[in-house]
């Protein structure tokens, strides 16, 4: 019996011991925290601050793709600039795209719906950026007034002002595209309230004025960071479009637009020596380099072929406008997507391009136009678009490249170094001219004419002696085509939806152009957010 007892007790005791010892330590194991080296749990001011800027430039945390910020079908299509560009350019007389990707054809022919992927992703990108700015502001404090030009973790005073600036910038695109959007200045745990377009506009103007004192003086910040000139610049844009945003016309707003654009002009930024420099790979290289574009660039979205790359930044722009039959553009990518509508060509060639000379069509169109901004490629192209989906219907645009002004090699031959000059000084001149003219009842003063001529002279174009508002619009087209501005300009001039005064190829889906409804002057609130946030209302007409 004794032996039997040992036999029973020994193994049983051992098993009980094993069970007991593991069971007691077990439930504590459930408290885990991330162990991966690329995950951190604490707020790192410098790194989060840098992200507020980088989310304009890249689509995620792994360039060019792989750790996307947004949960979308194709990360490469969901970066800030690509989305913004498509929504500002494709529905206008400047650009049309051949691709049939989700959302693109509808933009080409002004018939998008509230489930359009590009529209939805832009909304998500801006609101996401705003949430990150709110997060940064929630985690830092105004009581911290530290300043340092060398240490990002100790420059709280400027960074908070810049975070607020970037928040306004993202709200600016929401204001311009969507109008009546969710509004919050802190990371919400409940659905944020809806703000009406006019109220949002007023808040933005106030916010930009409030933060001016804490921003770096013009040109005092490291290249890439927004300074007070960027603040003035955005204010001037807001005032210029105030009638659209508030729904009422007020001369004071044009005066203000003139005041702030003049502040930009006087802040030390000047035009780059050559127009083409602004769109080349070394446009961010600054003082001492052949390319002097940083003189003009007030606020860039920076790109680097190795360190800051994505499929949504300047690579998108450069690859989308090029095709293998074109002269080298410095990237192995040529996606044969976006090209000029005839109406854009007309701004430089009022009667169309009549030459058939191959070398002129290849590289001599700027000379033919007498305007260094006419950067087109016409070989084997038709000027008009018989088909929207054929790349060679329509002249190609060669304005953007990944080539360097100094002829040196770029850091990569696929991904681009070319920075995107989101705000550049030339716009301040044209805004100044337009604001003065509008404030003056539509009659251009000599100051206004001079301002436009500053821009024209740089392009080698003839100097104007008189000026109408429509001429200013045309000048903006020649200066800023394929830079993501056109839709806003057309709406301000009343030439977009709801008018048959101003037609362009394929406008409204008809080859010769037809009018489309005015409700398209605002994009729809995406279905997804209407579903998720019952404070929101759909914009009328959708």
């Amino acid at each position, binding site marked *: 019996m004794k032996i039997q007892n040992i036999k029973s007790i020994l193994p049983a005791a051992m098993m009980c011991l094993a069970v007991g010892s593991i069971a007691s330590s077990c439930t504590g194991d459930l408290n885990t925290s991330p162990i991966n080296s690329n995950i951190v749990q604490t707020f790192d001011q410098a790194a989060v601050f840098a992200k507020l800027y980088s989310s304009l430039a890249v689509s995620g945390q792994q360039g060019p793709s792989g750790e996307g910020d947004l949960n979308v079908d194709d990360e490469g299509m969901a970066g800030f600039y690509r989305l913004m560009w498509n929504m500002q350019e494709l529905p206008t007389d400047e650009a049309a795209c051949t691709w049939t990707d989700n959302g693109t054809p509808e933009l080409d022919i002004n018939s998008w719906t509230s489930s359009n992927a590009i529209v939805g992703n832009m909304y998500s990108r801006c609101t996401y950026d705003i949430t990150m700015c709110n997060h940064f502001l929630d985690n830092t404090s105004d009581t911290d007034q530290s300043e340092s030009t060398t240490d990002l973790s100790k420059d709280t005073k400027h960074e908070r002002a810049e975070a607020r600036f970037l928040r306004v910038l993202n709200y600016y695109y929401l204001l311009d595209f969507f109008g009546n959007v969710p509004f919050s200045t802190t990371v919400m745990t409940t659905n*944020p309230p809806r703000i009406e377009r006019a109220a949002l506009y007023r808040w933005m103007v106030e916010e930009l004025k409030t933060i001016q004192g804490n921003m770096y003086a013009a040109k005092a910040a490291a290249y890439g960071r927004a300074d007070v000139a960027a603040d003035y610049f955005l204010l001037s844009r807001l005032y210029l479009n105030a009638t659209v945003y508030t729904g009422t016309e007020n001369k004071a707003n044009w005066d203000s637009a003139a005041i702030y654009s003049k502040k930009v002009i006087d802040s030390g930024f000047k035009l780059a020596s050559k127009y083409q420099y602004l769109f080349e790979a070394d446009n961010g290289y600054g003082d001492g380099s052949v390319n002097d574009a940083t003189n003009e660039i007030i606020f860039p979205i920076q790109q680097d072929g190795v360190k800051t790359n994505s499929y949504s930044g300047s690579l998108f722009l450069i690859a989308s406008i090029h095709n293998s039959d074109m002269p080298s553009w410095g990237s192995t990518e040529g996606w044969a997507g976006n090209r000029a509508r005839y109406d854009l060509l007309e701004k430089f060639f009022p009667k169309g391009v009549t030459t058939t000379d191959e070398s002129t069509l290849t590289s001599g169109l700027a000379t033919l136009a007498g305007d260094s901004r006419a950067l087109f490629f016409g070989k084997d192209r038709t000027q008009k678009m018989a088909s929207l989906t054929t790349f060679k219907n329509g002249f190609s645009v060669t304005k953007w490249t990944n080539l360097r002004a100094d002829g040196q090699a770029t850091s990569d031959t696929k991904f681009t170094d070319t920075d995107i000059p989101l705000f550049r000084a030339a716009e301040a001149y044209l805004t100044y001219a337009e604001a003065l003219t509008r404030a003056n009842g539509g009659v251009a003063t000599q100051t206004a004419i001079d301002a436009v001529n500053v821009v024209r002279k740089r392009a080698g174009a003839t100097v104007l002696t008189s000026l109408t508002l429509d001429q200013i619009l045309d000048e903006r087209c020649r200066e800023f085509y394929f830079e993501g501005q056109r839709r806003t300009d057309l709406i301000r001039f009343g030439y977009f939806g709801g008018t048959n005064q101003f037609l362009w190829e394929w406008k409204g889906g008809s080859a010769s152009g037809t009018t489309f409804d005015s409700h398209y002057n605002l994009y729809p609130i995406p279905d997804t957010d209407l579903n*998720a946030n019952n404070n929101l209302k759909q914009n009328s007409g959708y």
Partner: protein
Amino acid sequence: MKQVNLGISKKILALFLGLMLSVCTFAQTSTVTGRVIDVNGEPIIGVNVSVDGGKMNVITDIDGNFSIKVAPGAFLNISFIGYKSQKVSAESTPMRIVLKDNAVLLQDAIVIGYGTVKKNDLTGSVVAMKPDELNHGLQTNAQDMITGKIAGVSVISNGGTPGGGSTIRIRGGSSLNASNDPLVVIDGLAMDNQGIKGVSNLLSTVNPNDIASFTVLKDASATAIYGSRASNGVIIITTKRGVAGAAPKVSYDGNISFGFKRNTVAVMNGDEYENYVETLSGKDSDAYKLLGSQVFGKNYNTNWQDAIFRTAVSHDHNISVSGGFGNIPYRISGGYTNESGTLITSSFERVTGSINLAPTFYDKHLSFNINAKGMYAKNRYADAGAVGAAIAMDPTKPIMVENSSNTAYSDFGGYFQWYSYDSALGKNVINSLASHNPVAMLKQKHDIADSGDFIGNIEADYKFFFCPDLHIHANAGLEYSDGVQRLYESPESYDDSPYGRQGRDHLYKYNKSFNAYAQYSHDFNIHHLDVMGGYEWQHFYRAGLSHYNGVSATHNETSTPTKTESYLVSFFGRLNYSLLDRYMLTTTLRDDGTSRFSKNNRWGLFPSAALAWKIKNEPFMRNIKSLSDLKLRLGYGLTGQQDIDQGDYPYIPQYTVSTTGASYPFGGEYYTTNRPNAYNQNLKWESTTTWNVGVDYGFLHDRITGSVDWYYRTTKDLLNTVSISAETNFNNKLISNVGSLKNYGLEAAIDAKLISKKDFLWDVSYNVTWNKNKITKLTTGTGDGYYVATGSISSGTGETIQAQAVGQSANAFYVYKQIYDTNGKPIAGLYEDRDGDGKITSADKYYYKSPNAPILMGFSNKFVWKEWDFGFTLRASIGNYIYDDVLASHHNVSTTGYYATSGYLTNVMKRALSANFGSTSNIEYSDYYVKNASFLRCDNITLGYTFTNVMSTTFGGRLYATVGNPFVITKYKGLDPEVSGGIDRNVYPRPVTFTIGLNLNF
């Protein structure tokens, strides 16, 4: 305690009486003779026949005969390895003893979660099966053995990739976004379903030849004991063991097989294509100038599909030794698989080894079961995109271009490619929009994985001496795997030109687990009680690094580390009660804790209850002789889902640090950025409630058996990634608990021994499943027409063809309704204006069919005639639809379809000619491309010859020949109607295989 004492004394009494009896009877002995045969009537040699309680024992001879001296009326013990032992009373006339082998034995004890149960006592919907040794096709992986064999279980292999995995669905899957894979339990260890790096199959660790049985737990009353991982059913795999005291038995199983491509997509040959281009575009066209005859002076008439496929020769060898070394039963096995794919360059090589020891001590009161399984695999992946490229590639071009005719192609290793000269690089670059040379895609891409895996566990079971009705059981296990997938693409290769790409993706993981339970079972007169309670702990850990860059320059370098872990801790219990062996109740309860959710939502309680009524055992049924079994089962259970595919920390606020390509400069100095990530503190278990009603029946002494089950299953708090209110979190979408899904269905299985004669057997089994599912709720919002897009197609980036919507089947196709002319020809771009607003917008799309087959059937036949066996397996799927992406992406057969202005040609698919849609946009959303893909497939036909007692030894074996996948009957015109997920694009086609195999036993 009283009962226990009684038990011991009874036993002692019996022993004493037995001894007395044997002493008494020893005096009057006589000779008893008999013959031992198996169920097929074959004699069994070497069977141990002993007198119960006595010392006499003999062994049967070559004809199964024995002769032993014993008193009439005494009992004989008949035992043999692999067979169920019997005790029979000695008779004076020659005896005939039929031993049932373990396959039959399996009918009696079925492995369920944390224990076993007698088949007759099952209360849930559980199917146990032993692999069919005679009737099967090529079995590289464990799941190949159950394909089509079990009602309600769908196994769809992921194409013809050698060593490839499968999609297993039990009763259609209960989740939308979370995993729908069943939980796999191997020798009592619950596996994670993350798989192993470099091995495309979750179950490849287990050599199919080592598998003794499968148990599939289908309804929640059976699965709920696995709690949070049980919503999609459980597959329990038990591996083979040795038998105590048995002589070593060696067996070899090997085969060689030849795989052939079944069919190809009909495209134009070079001559047809040249004529076509000439007719439509004319000889002066840019398109015509690109033809082989114009560029190379010769139309090469290349059949690209022939160029990428080959006859694949594979072989497989397995050897095992099993027996009992004293009281230590052992089994050692080794396997080697060398499988070639029909796509050139694809191959899979695997070595497996396993050891099982099952010693018992203290008169079987303490028993151990020790398993160690190891695997090493080397896998070369072929880019299945080559299948699509072979369809699209211009047939007038050569595979390789001789340097003498055009030196440009030396930039691509001599392969023909569509290219242009890049002046920036000073070399030719491949046109990234054009189809790439499919042969180059395969040969220039070296994508090779080396993977090792080890699974080991020790199970201990201890039965208390003072109370043998009580035992405790513990199982400690470890899985460790290490896999590296290496990629090399030369700068000349088709992809990522011009730098090439190289790198590796390395992942190692370990899963530790421990479970223990105590079980008490006892008969109290007419009551039977069985109570079990236990505890389980699991730790899952994964770490690795993927690192890639260009070959000739540090171009686009990416480096992504992975390190993550999670824990599961559980308490569980089960109570079985039966009355009069007629009325049975089973209840289980599991409390699961996971580290993946926050403290408030971490624990989930999963109960179940089942009732069974053995109607056959009622007195009033006893007289119905033809009915041998009838049982009614009712079950209810709640199960969970925590496999959310969103990492291990979805509820914790965290930041992701940027890698090199995503840093940002200020003043030329680059900064690492930290991105706050979206998180959901409220995330909790997805829970599924299942109701099940089933009937088990048997007729004619169980020659016909079967079951019918009806089930209804609702899943709530469905884990799904949905759009969230903007400005409330750091993403546009977040994994959340939203929505509900229901599944209901009927399944029936019938097995019949149609003929069971000495020399002739005919077994038939048939199963049928009918399943329907519907999404009942999707988001917190109620927006009309809201849907979640899914199912990417190849026409354009980000385009999808399926959608999840309330009231629809999961993954239903979301398309325009095509309008046809009077001849039944579809009219390009003409769709039904369903909302009547006069234009075709996305609001005119509708939900049309789904990839889920409402009806699945399996049908197996086995004939055994003397030494010969013949079997075949058929499988049918009815009502499953496929989006023919191959056709849709080749719809444009007009000039703009075959000629791209960026300077390349695309071949024309003949099937697209009839619709002739031209370049109409949005054509890919037409329901014209959603095709009925119902099919009847023959999985295998096998003929075998069994030989025994060769030259009067115990040496025997079987020689067989099998045709795998010999035919498919379907209306679907694509390569294969069986596509997991329902979108037919670039599927690696399943080959037809011819196998010759040999099985030897020593």
